[in-house]
């Protein structure tokens, strides 16, 4: 197993939703591993943030499946918050992948939720923030699933918990919709 003892300077590229992030880094001369440094991470996050305005249409989630009763609940949430169902879905994902890190007890609840077996409704595609897209993509690859499967898993459970009376979860969705 290589310990990356010697390396050379190089220019590397990372593909995100078909967009290329190019960065200067080091490559191990022995095994070919490429360093993703603190500086590269900071540059990447800055680059990612800038993509939303120019290429927001690239960061989309498609073919999310929601049980019909939860789709009705999403519509109800959207209407009562003067928003859209797409925004409700984004709020669910945003809670799970971003704000949820500071609330592990809520994530634990979601892991144990069992949404019912209502007929599934296929939702059309919706945009997400680039940072959220990267997290969804990483989780999908990590668990060998498609991005829409991971998004469906999260959205179904967040909506189910909110509808079942978990007020803190409903608050999280409404907070995101109001932001």
């Amino acid at each position, binding site marked *: 197993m290589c310990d990356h003892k010697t390396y050379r300077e190089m220019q590397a590229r990372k593909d995100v939703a078909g967009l290329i992030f190019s960065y200067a880094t080091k490559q191990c001369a022995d095994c070919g591993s*490429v360093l993703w440094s*603190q500086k590269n991470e900071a540059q990447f996050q800055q680059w990612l943030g800038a993509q939303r305005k120019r290429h927001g249409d690239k960061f989309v989630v498609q073919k999310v499946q929601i049980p019909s009763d939860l789709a009705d609940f999403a519509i109800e949430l959207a209407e009562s918050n003067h928003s859209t169902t797409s925004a409700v879905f984004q709020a669910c994902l945003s809670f799970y992948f971003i704000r949820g890190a500071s609330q592990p007890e809520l994530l634990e609840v979601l*892991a144990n939720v069992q949404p019912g077996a209502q007929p599934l409704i296929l939702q059309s595609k919706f945009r997400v923030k680039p940072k959220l897209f990267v997290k969804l993509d*990483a989780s999908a690859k*990590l668990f*060998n699933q498609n991005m829409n499967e991971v998004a469906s898993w999260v959205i179904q459970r967040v909506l189910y918990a909110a509808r079942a009376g978990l007020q803190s979860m409903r608050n999280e969705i409404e907070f995101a919709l109001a932001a």
Partner: protein
Amino acid sequence: MKLLERIRNAIASGNVEYWENRPQHLTRADFDEVFSGTPDLSKLQMAPRESIGGEHGLDGEDSVYKGAISIAGFGGTRILYLKFFFWKKGDPHGEQGIEVQSFKLWSPKNV
């Protein structure tokens, strides 16, 4: 401080040097996702660090952690291989960083 907490602190403070070798290795984004959850680190083992290579070879701790970890999510469980060490040496309760030397899907060949 528990090992998981030390790793999360390093991630939160941005002190992560991450070596990736595509396509075998997972990405830095994968690494962040795993540690935003609660991976099982109980099978990680400590071993003497064998070289002073890498970004923090000189100021890193003398031991590496390596072995299989597992993470559950989205209805499944994944077993991964992780090898890393902490820097800076001698400051286990300060703002430490980590240098990840290897992070990939686990296979018997990794051991």
